[in-house]
């Protein structure tokens, strides 16, 4: 965890995407115009969030069997780091929507369900803070997290596809993958995803180490 090479890799990838993402050629599309470059910044936020929530649910499952406090802390801190990326994703999505769909919040299924899945995780933190007894808190929060994770996946990736949505990839609206995301964009998009996921993981490890130190102080 304390090895540095992947942190340098994260920094290099994020810097690369900021430069290449603004300078390289992109497809010329109506309405979207240059905002298609937001694909390199808005979408990786969600990818980082999903990866962090996956780490969180993994440690929640583990903490149920090992009963170890470290696993419980890992679960909550990765969820904590993930929610930051979710908030950044929803805010950048709203700004993007304002200039392509016409409104910050048009109650599009994708937007609504994304907001609900964030609320699910806010409820996870509220639930945790409501329980004082540590063993009980770890257990109940872990079980809640195991239920919240598939709900989040369904809300983000299944339900919006069953309805009409302006968001690409949903409701008969073809995703960027089909024809917009050509190989030039992939050259930036994949490094962007990896870079932001690594940054998210880095934030999580920092939070985890801080929390462990804080607990030692008590």
């Amino acid at each position, binding site marked *: 965890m304390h090895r540095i090479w992947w942190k340098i890799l994260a920094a290099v990838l994020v810097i690369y995407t*900021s430069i290449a*993402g*603004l300078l390289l050629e992109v497809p010329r599309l109506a309405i*979207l*115009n*240059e*905002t298609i*470059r*937001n694909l390199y*910044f*808005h979408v990786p*936020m969600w990818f980082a969030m999903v990866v962090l929530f996956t780490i969180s649910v993994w440690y929640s499952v583990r903490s149920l069997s090992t009963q170890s406090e470290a696993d419980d802390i890992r679960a909550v801190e990765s969820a904590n780091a993930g929610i*930051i990326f979710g*908030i*950044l994703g929803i*805010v*950048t999505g709203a*700004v*993007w929507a304002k*200039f*392509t769909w016409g409104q910050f919040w048009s109650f599009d299924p994708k937007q609504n369900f994304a907001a609900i899945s964030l609320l699910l995780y806010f409820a996870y933190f509220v639930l945790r803070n409501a329980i004082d007894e540590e063993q009980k808190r770890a257990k109940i929060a872990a079980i809640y997290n195991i239920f919240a994770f598939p709900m989040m996946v369904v809300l983000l990736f299944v339900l919006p596809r069953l309805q009409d949505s302006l968001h690409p990839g949903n409701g008969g609206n073809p995703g960027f993958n089909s024809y917009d995301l050509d190989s030039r964009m992939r050259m930036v998009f994949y490094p962007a995803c990896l870079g932001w996921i690594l*940054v998210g993981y880095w*934030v999580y490890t*920092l*939070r985890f180490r*801080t929390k462990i*130190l*804080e607990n030692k*102080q008590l």
Partner: protein
Amino acid sequence: MKKLLTILILLFSSLNLLAQNNDIEMADRLREDGKIYIVVICIVIILFGLLIYLFLLDKRLKLLEKKSDPKN
């Protein structure tokens, strides 16, 4: 002739209206240059959010360092 004149006048008045519409000041700046400024706004939001987050984390660590200082 009268009809034609009316039509012409109406035609020009409508053209006038269009020209006026273009003069009205709107927040077009954000949509200029192929909406590139929207990308800039989004990058700024992400950097802003993550940097604030880092500063908060830094504050937490500083508090810890202060507490674990052997002098206290």
